[in-house]
């Protein structure tokens, strides 16, 4: 029997919640080989064993199953409301099956929304039309609250950081963000970064950078060299896994730039924990969703 879109999205959630991406697992393995203390080694051993247990048992990698954020890339004239509805139904199912925690709170009343769904509002869905696309591609990211709380937005110039409106100013912001995160956001982390944009665009683009594989680098030479430099320098801070000290504080730095107003120069950092759960799938839509 053909799988519905809801079935396919539920499969994607189950995969994403329980399987750490291969590149992240490889980076943690390298970090383990380079561990500088017994505490650092113990933490990384636990993370790797946990990754194996979660994958084998199809149970959540992390109990904070995060904000489910879908990035859909769709052919022209796709019925995006149908995709949103399918994502909502998939989440209701995934939550009932214990793949997702009851992780959604009504901000005003404090009540738990046990399905994790509010039609039209939760989950977060972004749609982009690709004129050349014949099929729907969807990337899902699950980012938890501990790391989300460590995300930052700087406005340059920032005199307390000695950060001007140039790439060295950006470097200072990124090192500051990595330092502030300490062990609160479950280091070793990944920085998704947007330079420029307005404040809202900055956070969106920064989060999207977290979808890039760890071995990917910016096509802009200046940004690519900044990515490498900040990664190297942050890993000399000695914060280490969980902030207990050690050699690996960040696994990656991914930077993009957007246009800005003359008056504004924002540096936006989406801090993601080591459990950066992201996967991409192409949906079988039987002649399209329209």
């Amino acid at each position, binding site marked *: 029997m053909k799988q519905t879109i809801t079935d396919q999205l539920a499969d994607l959630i189950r995969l994403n919640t329980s399987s750490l991406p291969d590149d992240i697992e490889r980076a943690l393995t390298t970090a383990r080989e380079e561990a500088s203390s017994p505490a650092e080694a113990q933490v990384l051993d636990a993370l790797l064993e946990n990754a194996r247990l*979660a994958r084998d048992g199809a149970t959540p990698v992390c*109990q904070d199953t995060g904000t489910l954020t879908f990035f859909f890339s769709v052919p022209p004239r796709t019925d995006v409301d149908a995709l949103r509805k399918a994502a909502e139904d998939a989440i209701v199912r995934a939550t009932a099956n214990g793949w997702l925690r009851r992780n959604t709170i009504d901000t005003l009343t404090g009540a738990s929304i046990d399905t994790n769904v509010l039609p039209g509002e939760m989950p977060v869905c972004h749609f982009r039309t690709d004129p050349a696309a014949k099929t729907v591609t969807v990337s899902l990211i699950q980012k938890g609250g501990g790391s989300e709380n460590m995300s930052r937005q700087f406005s340059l110039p920032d005199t307390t950081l000695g950060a001007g409106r140039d790439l060295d100013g950006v470097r200072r912001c990124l090192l500051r963000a990595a330092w502030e995160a300490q062990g609160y956001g479950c280091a070793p982390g990944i920085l998704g970064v947007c330079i420029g944009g307005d404040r809202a665009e900055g956070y969106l683009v920064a989060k999207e950078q977290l979808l890039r594989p760890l071995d990917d680098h910016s096509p802009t030479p200046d940004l690519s060299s900044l990515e490498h430099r900040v990664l190297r320098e942050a890993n000399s801070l000695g914060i280490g896994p969980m*902030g207990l000290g050690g050699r690996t504080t960040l696994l990656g730095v991914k930077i993009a730039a957007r246009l800005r107003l003359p008056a504004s120069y924002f540096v936006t950092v989406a801090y993601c924990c080591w459990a950066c759960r992201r996967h991409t799938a192409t949906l079988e839509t039987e002649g399209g969703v329209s």
Partner: protein
Amino acid sequence: MIELRYPFTETAVRALRAGDVVRVSGRVCTGRDRFHKFLADGGTCPVDLRDGALFHCGPVAVPEGDGWRIAAAGPTTSIREEPYEAATIERLGLRVLIGKGGMGADTLEACRRFGCVYLQAVGGAAALTAQRIKRVIGVHFLQAFGATEACWEWEVEGLEAVVGMDAHGEDLFARVREASAARLEALGKEEA
């Protein structure tokens, strides 16, 4: 590896030093944001936590038969409870806190004064931690706080953790924070 078992004695807790690797067994209760605020607002703790352990944790709990299966569990960021924790340690007679990221000066002082330690569990290692939970003894405030924020009573076996803050005023996180701040300052002086 040091074994700690409930009920935790003051002697066992005061023998621990920041950086020690431990395994916790016996009864552990969870309590996070809602739980701490409830106590601070004058609420009564539904479980006896004297010589007990409080875990900053919101699990993935799945109803199964008459009970619950804990599919995933792990520490949440502890610093959010800093405004409440010193008073909680004193009032409930806690000996062990389990969480992630460390806490502040008031909690460190309460640990020293009343004989309590802060343990860093491995953040995000939810499948591994769930394996250490052998039994759900009970759950409190399920309706009021929801399953994630509820106060769960668990029997655990061999839950791994590192002593982050001991009962002698030693704080591993503060040490790392200070050393990394010095390094950050040095990086700030490097050429663009």
